[in-house]
């Protein structure tokens, strides 16, 4: 079977290029320029899918994005794309498509039994049943419904292709490249404006592609646009949404017309377009008519059949009946007759019209005042039943394999509506058109009800020109529209032909006119309620062909005009968009960037096992060959610090220089403790509260000069602290002369901790006396280290004698190496974040697990730090009764009574079987082997010495723990001051 419905000539397909493809495993051929739907029709394939609920046979209904029926699974394996509209898929060699939503074969789908059950499974039936017994919903009813519902199958595999984002700015964006859009782009481009023309089709022209005699005008328009340097042409690009302030989203199908994307080419590109002015030239979608059997394969929109004949050179049927309510639809009959299709009858509810007369003159049988009352056939149309309009009676049957339907046209107002424009009822066109624009946007052509190529082009040219002028450009020469007659698109008001059998208003979702009436009967009379109750217009086609018909059926039931019933609100997307495209490149490993310290390579060479800390990668620990497991590594590292010396990369801490005459005043206000009294060359531990009085962050701050401080933050809060400082400076104290500079990346820092730390640091730094007297705890000095400028801080997180050496980041590896070399005689070990955590838990220092946004300074045992005098952020609200309540949980130390029994962070602390707190941090101890932790416990201090239960019911654990002081290790701080 080789394309027996292909016409010998005409259209925009290249008959010399044969493309092989398969549908349900059968092999076919089409041509370059075909859509899958065109190629299927050329090969006489009429049945392409099954409907959502009743599993009725369905064919190809349209020739564009509005397609409700011809949804296929395109490609296979990891590239399978369910629910792909055959009417927009560009044919390529080797294309494979499969029909979907049937059990058994496409032709014999045993789920079609649902059609017989229709009286009981109409709109909303499931709300009224499946309630007994209650447990049956999840076990029986729902799995059954779920399996039956849905359309295509996802591959379930990762997508092998990639996508990219792109950003564009323009003076005028023109959406749609039909006659109106081409003229608009040309008129705007001629002014010198930066213009983007986006068209979802792979060819520019829209309805021009159906008019061979206008081919010169189309060709010239495209050539002119291509010659304009400031015009960007984006074919295969769907503008899916109109957002605030002239921003529109679009997806360009870069490689969907190829078997697979070439190297260095994304499959699709997601555009964010910022336009000063927008011209919407999105055309119109032809409207179905609801009549019994209006969904049978072989029933097709009239304009679609015309497109298949004219653009694709394909006869959609041998014998056709046209059922139309307006003159413009007659063009389809003429086009098909020209293509060799026999026009068996034209059924028109009107008494007379100019087109009718022309049709009669051409020899067609025109049945004026009549309607289609039903269709005959199984998986394909065999005949059409007609009757007298308004009588409901059945007059006669006409044999036909194609029924062309046109109930008028729905302007594609989706983008205008999303931009904020209201919709206005056009009584002549029986359709909604955009009312006044809210954003800088104008509609042109059929999307605002201006039909006919010449008229649309003139409208587009005027809109494009006006848009360019509004964007600040001087007017240029006019674009001449083609001189064509404007067919009359004003329909006779006929939405539904009532009769026996299902008359669909939403073909995809199997919503019938009766369903709409049932919804009304049950009180779901508002369009939004009716839509939700029946699922009308909620399918992949979003009701483009039938949405208004459903509204009209509802209007009739409500005895109100359609204009009053209205349409549900339009929301993105105009057409479905690929998930991967919107995601762009920031997926998988690139979901967020990886931030590396200057010592990253050093850690890698040392065998670091990484952990994530925000964007940072930090060494969790260093796996030595001799370590039995991760804990062995961590304990080894921590033991080195307690007993000898260790070195740890602490570059990730946030660092902010606060400088200016008011720097000290500023810090006094943002910290809960005082900094104005700090001496130059000294550091102090600081505590920041939020305005609500809870602890925000902590760190050490150094006074480098009277007007210059060096603030450190925790790794996690570096960004938020900077914003917090900037905000309060800008909003609360703009009078303070102070500047803030983040120097986190400028400085790499390493902490050298342990009893031998002084010896190691002394061997590395020059120009500084490290003796306890000259350089006591909390002293800071600039110096040289390993020949580079450095700054040494005598501060400790581990509870040992410790120094932090900070150097400009480019020298970090050099200085680290010098430290390691100097440490060899002392048995130095690098230690990671896990050992750091172990050490601080032993010492009782709080960190992110305790400063979690839910704790106060008092809760953490830091209440004495709050200064008594002077304003600071959080001071007033920290005094609220709920925050000073002595019953609040307080920081305690915890120790597993049986040293071998593990305790866990996240366990709750039970006293008499009731939760009185929880464990925040846990580690094994090197000082006193066994499991220890920190926790928050009600009446914490009073309970020191008692044994309680650490309960972790999630893991079935109840571990007796002893409550101890959190500061059990070297409580007098002798070691840090040694």
């Amino acid at each position: 079977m080789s394309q027996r419905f292909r016409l010998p000539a005409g259209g925009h397909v290249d008959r010399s290029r044969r493309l092989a493809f398969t549908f349900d495993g059968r092999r076919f051929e089409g041509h370059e320029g075909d859509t899958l739907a065109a190629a299927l029709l050329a090969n006489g394939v009429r049945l392409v899918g099954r409907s959502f609920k009743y599993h009725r046979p369905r064919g190809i209904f349209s020739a564009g994005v509005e397609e409700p029926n011809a949804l296929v699974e395109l490609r296979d394996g990891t590239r399978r794309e369910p629910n792909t509209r055959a009417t927009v898929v560009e044919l390529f060699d080797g294309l494979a498509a499969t029909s979907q939503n049937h059990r058994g074969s496409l032709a014999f789908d045993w789920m079609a039994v649902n059609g017989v059950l229709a009286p009981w499974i109409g709109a909303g039936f499931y709300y009224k049943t499946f309630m007994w017994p209650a447990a049956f919903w999840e076990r029986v009813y729902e799995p059954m419904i779920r399996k039956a519902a849905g359309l295509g199958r996802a591959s379930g595999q990762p997508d092998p292709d990639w996508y990219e984002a792109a950003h564009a700015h323009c003076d005028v964006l023109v959406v749609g490249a039909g006659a109106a859009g081409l003229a608009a782009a040309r008129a705007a481009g001629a002014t010198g404006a930066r213009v983007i023309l986006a068209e979802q089709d792979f060819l520019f022209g829209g309805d021009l592609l159906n008019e061979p005699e206008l081919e010169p005008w189309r060709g010239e328009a495209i050539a002119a646009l291509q010659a304009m340097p400031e015009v960007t042409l984006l074919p295969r690009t769907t503008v899916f949404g109109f957002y605030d302030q002239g921003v529109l989203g679009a997806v360009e199908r870069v490689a969907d017309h190829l078997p697979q994307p070439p190297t260095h080419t994304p499959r699709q590109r997601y555009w964010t377009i910022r336009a000063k002015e927008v011209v919407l030239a999105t055309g119109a979608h032809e409207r179905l008519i609801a009549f019994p059997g209006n969904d049978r394969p072989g029933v097709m929109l009239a304009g679609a059949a015309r497109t298949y004949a004219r653009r694709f050179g394909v006869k959609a049927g041998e014998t056709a009946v046209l059922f139309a309510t307006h003159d413009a639809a007659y063009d389809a009959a003429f086009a098909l007759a020209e293509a060799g299709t026999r026009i068996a009858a034209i059924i028109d509810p009107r008494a007379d019209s100019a087109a009718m007369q022309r049709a009669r003159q051409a020899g067609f049988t025109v049945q004026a005042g009549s309607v289609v009352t039903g269709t005959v056939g199984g998986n394909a149309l065999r005949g059409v039943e007609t009757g007298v309009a308004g009588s409901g009676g059945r007059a006669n049957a006409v044999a036909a394999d194609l029924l062309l339907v046109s109930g008028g046209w729905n302007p594609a107002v989706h983008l205008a509506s999303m931009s904020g424009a209201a919709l206005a009822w056009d009584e002549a066109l029986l359709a909604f058109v955009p009312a006044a624009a809210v954003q800088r946007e104008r509609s042109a052509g059929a999307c605002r009800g201006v039909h006919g190529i010449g008229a649309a082009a003139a409208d587009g040219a005027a809109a494009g020109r006006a848009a360019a002028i509004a964007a600040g450009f001087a007017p240029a020469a006019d674009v001449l529209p083609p001189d064509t007659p404007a067919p009359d698109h004003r329909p006779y008001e006929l939405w539904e032909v009532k009769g026996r059998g299902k008359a669909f208003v939403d073909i995809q979702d199997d919503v019938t006119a009766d369903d709409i009436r049932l919804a009304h009967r049950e009180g779901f009379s508002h369009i939004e309620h009716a839509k939700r109750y029946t699922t009308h217009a909620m399918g992949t086609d979003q009701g483009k062909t039938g949405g208004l018909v459903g509204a009209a059926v509802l209007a009739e039931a409500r005895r109100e005009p359609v204009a009053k019933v209205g349409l549900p609100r339009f929301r993105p997307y105009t057409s479905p968009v690929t998930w991967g495209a919107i995601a762009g490149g920031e997926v998988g490993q690139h979901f967020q960037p990886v931030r590396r310290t200057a010592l990253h390579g050093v850690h890698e060479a040392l065998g670091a096992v990484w952990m994530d800390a925000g964007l940072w990668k930090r060494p969790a620990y260093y796996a030595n060959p001799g370590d039995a497991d991760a804990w062995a590594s961590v304990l080894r590292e921590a033991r080195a610090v307690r007993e000898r010396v260790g070195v740890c990369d602490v570059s990730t801490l946030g660092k902010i220089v606060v400088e200016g005459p008011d720097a000290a005043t500023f810090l006094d206000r943002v910290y809960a403790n005082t900094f104005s009294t700090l001496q130059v060359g000294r550091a102090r531990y600081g505590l920041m509260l939020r305005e609500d009085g809870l602890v925000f962050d902590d760190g050490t701050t150094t006074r480098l000069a009277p007007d210059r401080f060096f603030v450190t933050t925790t790794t996690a809060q570096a960004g938020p602290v900077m914003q917090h400082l900037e905000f309060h400076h800008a909003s609360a104290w703009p009078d303070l002369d102070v500047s803030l500079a983040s120097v986190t990346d400028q400085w790499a820092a390493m902490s050298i901790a342990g009893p031998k730390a002084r010896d190691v640091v002394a061997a590395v730094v020059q120009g500084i006396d490290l003796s306890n007297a000259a350089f006591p705890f909390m002293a800071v000095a600039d110096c040289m280290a390993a020949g580079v400028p450095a700054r040494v801080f005598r501060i400790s997180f581990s509870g040992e004698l410790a120094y932090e050496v900070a150097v400009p980041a480019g020298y970090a590896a050099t200085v680290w190496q010098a430290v390691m070399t100097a440490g060899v005689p002392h048995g130095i070990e690098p230690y990671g974040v896990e050992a750091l955590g172990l050490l601080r838990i032993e010492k009782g220092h709080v960190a992110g697990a305790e400063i979690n946004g839910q704790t106060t300074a008092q809760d953490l045992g830091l209440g004495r730090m709050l200064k008594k005098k002077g304003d600071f952020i959080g001071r007033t609200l920290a005094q609220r009764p709920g925050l000073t309540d002595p019953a609040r949980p307080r920081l305690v130390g915890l120790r597993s009574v049986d040293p071998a029994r593990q305790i866990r962070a996240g366990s709750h602390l039970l006293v008499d079987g009731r939760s009185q707190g929880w464990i925040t941090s846990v580690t094994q101890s090197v000082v006193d082997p066994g499991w220890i932790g920190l926790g928050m416990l009600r009446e914490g201090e009073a309970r020191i010495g008692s044994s309680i239960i650490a309960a972790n019911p999630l893991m079935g654990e109840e571990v007796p723990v002893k409550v101890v002081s959190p500061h059990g290790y070297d409580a007098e701080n002798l070691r840090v001051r040694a």
Partner: protein
Amino acid sequence: MAGYSGFRVLTEGLRGNTGWKPAWRKATPKPAYDVIVVGGGGHGLATAFYLASVHGIANVAVLERGLIGQGNTGRNTTIVRSNYLLPENNNFYEHSLKLWEGLEQSLNYNVMMSQRGVINLFHSDAQKHAALRRGNSMRLNGIDAEILDPAGVKAMCPIIDVDNGRYPVLGGLLQRRGGTARHDAVAWGFAHAADARGVDIIEQCEVTGMIVEGGAIRGVRTTRGEIRAPKVGLAVAGSTSTLTAMAGFDVPIETHLLQAFVSEGLKPLIDCVVTFGAGHFYVSQSDKGGLVYGGGLDGYPSYGQRGTLPTAEHVYAAGISMIPALGRLRGLRSWAGVMDMTPDGSHYICKTPVHGLYMTAGWCYGGFKATPGSGWCHAWTIAKDEPHRLNAAHTLDRFREGRMLDERGNGPYFWAH
């Protein structure tokens, strides 16, 4: 009115479905009621239902500015769960979940409550510890919770990539009794059941003023005239600030927007609700086959019900990072709802400074799952003029007292919860 049942569906089907009556009457307002509930969304309708069914107060009007169920009931991602950390919250939501579990039978309406399981993934030790603390809090309060390792996550949802992402999955906190429900049906079901008990549901009736005399509520002024009542309950989501301003006081609420999305219909692919822990993303699959998904707030106040691209980009990117198989699927529709955010992320069901005026408000983005519980507690508070113990902590005054209910410690920033 005859109830709904499989038998009735059968017999009506044989009669051409002509015997169905409106699910609720189109009532016209009377001059006075015992209680006026302002707001015909899920919470308001539930309040009326429980006033009638639990407290025997059926002389109740529900006043709705537009259509019932057209606020957040009509625009949410349908998730039902009670996996909270703080006992004040998890006990409340557990009560709500238990009401959900019998809701079909109480309402005689199938709201398709589907207990398919809700998993919150975690990706770091810190997140795991927070999940353990929360899950243990649930368990100690008698609520089901399980901790999953990566293999357990894979078993529940095989298409999650636990190994290869920027932030590999370390496990998840699972509540098996959590799940989804058919959102619109919840409003319709409560309306149907409240109406059946005599409640007047009055649509297209906007409240334009609050009648307050001597510090007490006396009724409301509406576009359909004045209606008196000694007790008025507010359940109006994004209009709370407007109505409390009419009553003469401000509330700790900032109204933000939250986007949600639905994909094209698919055969079953995801059989539970999953939340990504390394970005803002969650997903479930509806009975109709569409994936329903969303992420975090857009980040600024809005009543516009229109979302923005950067947030959508994050949602899609996070989704693919968690489930790479989503890449070739297509999003069908996006929308945005209004969220009354509070400074601690928890809600209000409470009395107000005006005597006889009560409110359920500030639901952030947790309002849907709260629907029955909110209605139940609000009804109790109205009927008894005092809060039930389940909502005793959820007052407007808690910020004056410093007794915040901040689940995640995100602080006094409306947009941070």
